[in-house]
């Protein structure tokens, strides 16, 4: 495995506000070749949508959202974004094959917001029927949005005695298998509020949701479990390793190293795209084996995305984020999307951009009208 991250292999930066995005040479070509675009967030305030323009150059679009956490899509026309206190569902309003005047082939509009409150959402996913299910870290459970409550509890680790406020084990990651919530990650199995912090180096676990059994122990702040190509992948963030879990032997098998606190993961063909945050001395990402691994490699941690070739374990591309930001919680792939855009909450577009079927006469609706 190599980890180039050399400045002379980096394309010209894309600057948005006070944040720079630096892509590896060939990253845009890789996106174009894979026919995919990527969505990720950098708290406290940014949502990024990354694709390529008509000339094959990197096209970066950003919007302001408060602490973007988990992300999910139902393919390429609906996007769910968890933020500090809310979950937003964005809808692509462009017809198939249509583009905006600026050449965007998706235009996501924030259509529905659900207030979930201060629950510290991490991973977010969709069940087979399209219902959202997500990790409610503060209450130690999987949960879904509800029209009449902040959230509906769906499952909690067996070692917790129930769903209650107070982060006990730092439940954070969720893997879906065929639309079913199947595996979760926790930083520890502690049952007292905040005790999980003492287990950051080696008490992380992966739990089988169906059986409640722990299928892997001894991890360091594991995050972002994902089921891909018949294998259970996990970012062992505290060591900077991406790997798989052998559930029979209950061991973690590293596949690649990335220079950073690895968290946020999606797959594109034979590649993994993994997010990376920057530890800082004294924070919860520091004091881990990752520090030693970086020192041994004479590397600095980076904030951004790493593209890892699954066949070789090599870090083949990257997109680095530089500026007054340190964290990245999730990354989501939009297959078949070349250059996405989104309407934000702050400008006039969310008010003025209206999309509806204006065909007259209006089809009869006996359910809504007394006299159609």
């Amino acid at each position, binding site marked *: 495995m190599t980890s180039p991250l050399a400045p002379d292999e980096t394309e010209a930066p894309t600057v948005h506000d006070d944040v720079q995005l630096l892509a590896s040479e060939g990253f845009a070509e890789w996106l174009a070749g894979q026919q995919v675009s990527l969505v990720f967030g950098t708290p406290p305030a940014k949502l990024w949508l990354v694709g390529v323009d008509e000339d094959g150059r990197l096209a970066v679009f950003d919007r302001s959202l408060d602490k973007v956490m988990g992300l999910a899509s139902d393919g390429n026309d609906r996007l769910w974004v968890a933020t500090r206190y809310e979950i937003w569902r964005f809808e692509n*309003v462009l017809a198939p094959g249509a583009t905006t005047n600026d050449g965007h082939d998706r235009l996501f509009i924030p*259509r529905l917001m659900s*207030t979930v409150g201060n629950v510290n959402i991490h991973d977010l996913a969709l069940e087979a029927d399209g219902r959202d299910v997500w990790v409610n870290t503060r209450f130690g459970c999987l949960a879904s949005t509800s029209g009449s409550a902040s959230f509906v509890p769906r499952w909690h680790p067996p070692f917790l005695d129930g769903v209650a406020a107070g982060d006990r084990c730092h439940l954070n990651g969720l893997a879906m298998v065929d639309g079913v919530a199947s595996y979760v990650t926790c930083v520890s199995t502690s049952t007292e509020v905040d005790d999980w912090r003492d287990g950051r180096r080696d008490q992380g676990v992966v739990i089988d949701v169906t059986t409640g059994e722990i299928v892997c122990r001894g991890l360091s702040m594991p995050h972002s479990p994902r089921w891909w190509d018949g294998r259970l992948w996990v970012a062992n963030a505290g060591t900077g390793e991406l790997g798989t879990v052998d559930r029979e032997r209950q061991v973690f098998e590293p596949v690649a190293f990335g220079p950073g606190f690895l968290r946020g993961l999606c797959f594109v063909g034979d590649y993994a795209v993994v997010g990376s945050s920057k530890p800082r001395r004294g924070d919860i990402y520091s004091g881990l084996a990752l520090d030693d691994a970086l020192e041994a490699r004479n590397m600095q941690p980076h904030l951004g995305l790493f593209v890892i070739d699954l066949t070789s374990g090599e870090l083949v591309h990257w997109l680095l984020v530089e500026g007054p930001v340190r964290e990245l919680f999730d990354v989501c792939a939009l297959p078949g999307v070349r250059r996405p855009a989104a309407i934000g909450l702050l400008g006039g577009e969310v008010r003025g951009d209206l999309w*509806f079927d204006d065909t*007259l006469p209006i089809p009869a609706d006996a*359910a809504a009208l007394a006299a159609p």
Partner: protein
Amino acid sequence: MSAGPAQHLHTYEPVVSDGVAAALAGHGASIVAASASRVWLITADERLGVVVREFGLDSVGAAAWHHDRLVLVSDWQVWTFVDAGPEPDGMAQHLLLAQEAHTTGSLGVTDVAVGSGGPVVVSGLFSCLATLDDHNSMRPIWVAPGVTALRPETRALLTGVALMDGRAAFVTAAGLSDEADGWQPSLVGGGAVLTTGGEPVLSGLALPRHPRWQGDHLLVADTGTGRVLRLDPATGDADSLVTLPGVLGALDARRDLAVVAYGDASRAAVSGLEGGHPASGPVRDGLALIDLPSGSVAGTIEFLGRAGPFGAVAVLPGLASAALAVPRGLTTQQTAVLGDPEALTR
């Protein structure tokens, strides 16, 4: 530029008349009223009397109560507040928590009602009724008679909707036209109440708005004349229940209690209206509580300063003790209401 003396630009001191506390307590109800930049929640408390609480919430143009939830329509979102039970560390028995927001964009909503299929909004801008849509800004379900295109031109200014059995049955219009802003020349006398079948029920009105079905008749605010009308849609017979000073604003009615906003004609959202019976001076922005069985004004709440005009009111039946947690406010963010647990889908 030199600094001048500080000015207190807005004072919204409420002046509550006798009868308001008894009317609210008697009906076990609270009231929500909204202007361009503020929302007020008015409750009656046994110890404190009438409590008027003010919240910062922009551009609420329509309001409705349905079962256990309050719907407020802002300039570009339809907010649903749910009854989260007792207010944490507070006095109210019912905390209304900002739970969901549906983005519609600016439809120029003048009224909302919640039917069996969810909210029905009245788009004054597009001259149509619409429901919310998972994908689009709205799903039009009805367009004003004579309007040949759904354009943001306020061709026929629709001003209200009344439901029967959960379905949109009656609408009010300030004027019908197929031209951009074509309703305006007929502001006085061109207003009408229609069925959603397109049949006229009553015409010759001056900016009628907010029809409410009361079991066997409609209540309608005839804004320009200051009259609250009681209308039999079967016969078209109408009588004036009460006449209030100035011009009317929003109206809502639940059970035996109606609340009607009123204010000075010179500051009404639409100019050219004369208002109801003459007042000796400027009319304060106010809310009148009307006891429907007797047809009398049970009390008024008037505001010193420019609180209104009130474009939306809602009567909250059964919520004698209520509090409001505004969108993105600290209470909304920090309050967690757990729904009943559900198993994962397998």
